[in-house]
């Protein structure tokens, strides 16, 4: 029995595959404006996804908010910049490289991964460091599966992630303002990366990721603040040292390496004790709810941090 429901696209809404595949030719033919419109709809590909674990009892946020309200500074600093400035981004073809301290370095064809029957749906809470939250039905593959295939060496302790740099397709990367040095980088401890909750997402709502949500492949770590979920990942490197992370580099007193959701540890500018729930249609209907320790995933991850001072390691 399905305990959740969200609008799946009708078959008639799905762009025929030949139209999708021919969009480059049409570009060549000079049908520029028409193609730009089609490319926007054609980029969503239905996935062979099946329900995975840890999704119980959550109702996804309406899709329009999940795909229209994003922090993705590569495309701009406002929440609606990613959706409006990412149409020039071409996520495919894409190769994801897994290297570093591994016995079997991998080069994964993400286009092929999108067709995989291993993709599972995980409905997770998403808590942004800015004190708002959503519930997102991701489709992806546990990161542990891919890391196991690469066989990390015995001295490996951390995993570093690196996003793509394409200023010609990502206007935010050529903006002088953000102060971020590209590529966006993130990192996890190896045991965090191997946790069964940690997901490499290739889709949301049963379809391939829209550009603004981190196409074609992104990280999802539901017990951490959203900025840990690095988007459009090109390289994953297994290391023995803690890798630098973008927001920590920018403001070390505001954003830690761990960035675990923790209602007791406030951000210098926001209380983290509670959060605005995204999804209300009206101003006066907006809800606020208490933030849960580890975003409600304590059962799965509290053990990773036993004995650690979470105020110092924020």
């Amino acid at each position: 029995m399905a305990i959740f429901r969200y609008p799946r696209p009708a078959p008639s809404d799905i762009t025929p595959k030949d139209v999708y595949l021919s969009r480059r030719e049409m570009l060549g033919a000079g049908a520029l404006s028409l193609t730009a419109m089609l490319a926007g709809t054609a980029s969503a590909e239905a996935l062979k996804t099946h329900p995975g674990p840890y999704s119980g009892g959550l109702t996804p946020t309406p899709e329009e908010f999940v795909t229209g309200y994003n922090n993705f500074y590569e495309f701009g600093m406002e929440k609606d910049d990613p959706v409006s400035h990412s149409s020039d981004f071409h996520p495919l073809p894409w190769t994801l490289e897994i290297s570093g301290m591994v016995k079997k370095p991998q080069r994964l064809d993400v286009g092929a991964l999108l067709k995989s029957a291993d993709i599972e749906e995980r409905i997770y809470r998403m808590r942004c460091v800015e004190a708002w939250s959503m519930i997102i039905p991701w489709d992806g593959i546990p990161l542990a599966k891919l890391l196991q295939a690469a066989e990390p060496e015995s001295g490996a302790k951390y995993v570093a992630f690196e996003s793509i740099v394409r200023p010609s397709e990502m206007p935010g990367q050529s903006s002088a303002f953000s102060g971020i040095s590209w590529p966006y980088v993130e990192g996890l401890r190896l045991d965090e990366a191997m946790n069964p909750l940690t997901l490499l997402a290739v889709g949301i709502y049963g379809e391939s990721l829209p550009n603004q949500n981190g196409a074609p492949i992104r990280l999802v770590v539901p017990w951490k603040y959203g900025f840990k979920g690095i988007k459009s990942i090109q390289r994953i490197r297994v290391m023995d040292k803690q890798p630098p992370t973008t927001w920590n580099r920018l403001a070390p007193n505001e954003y830690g390496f761990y960035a675990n959701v923790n209602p007791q540890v406030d951000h210098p500018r926001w209380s983290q004790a509670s959060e605005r729930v995204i999804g209300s249609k009206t101003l006066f209907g907006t809800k606020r709810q208490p933030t849960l320790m580890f975003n409600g995933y304590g059962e799965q991850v509290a053990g990773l941090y036993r004995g650690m001072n979470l105020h110092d390691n924020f």
Partner: protein
Amino acid sequence: MTISRSAAPAFVRRHWSIVLYPLGLLPAVWLVWEGQNGNLGADPVNVFERSLGLWAFRFLLVCLALAPLQRVVSFNLVRFRRLTGLLAFFYAVLHLAAYVVLDLQFDVGIFWRDLTHRTFIILGMAALTLLLPLALTSNRFSMKRLKRGWKRLHRLVYGAAILAGIHFFLSFKTLNGTSALYLSLLALVLLARAPMIWISFRRKGAGRL
């Protein structure tokens, strides 16, 4: 001295405040309307709250810009100082109300922690606090009662503007175009007023306030 006289109907000329105060409230009315109709996006409270703060800052900038601009235009601009100043105060109060009522939903615990721990919020609160005596004494009666003290008291507006500017800047996660624009405007206005500020603070008995 004749531009306004010929451009505006007699009623507006005589009772401009009756027309302009409601006009100044339009952005707030419009924001509520848009918010209730689902047009403020995924996080309407955040947009509402930030927009109100930005309007407060805009009116404060206009208020400070009137006197320097007076030197280059021929009609009476300075008479709008009370209007724009009061609107700035009004929007700042709405901004705070939106934060406490719609955002925090009366969570007094968080509000108190914010007021005592978060620089960004302390600065915003301080700016609003400085505007309060200015709003309360923005009438002819107070002007007469306070005499020269009134001018001295109203120098607090510089403090409020600078605190509000820093508060605004800190409300963003990184450097960005919007904060850069408004901080440049603030710098410009203060620079244009520099001679006035200099004279006003050097005046006899200006040691305090």
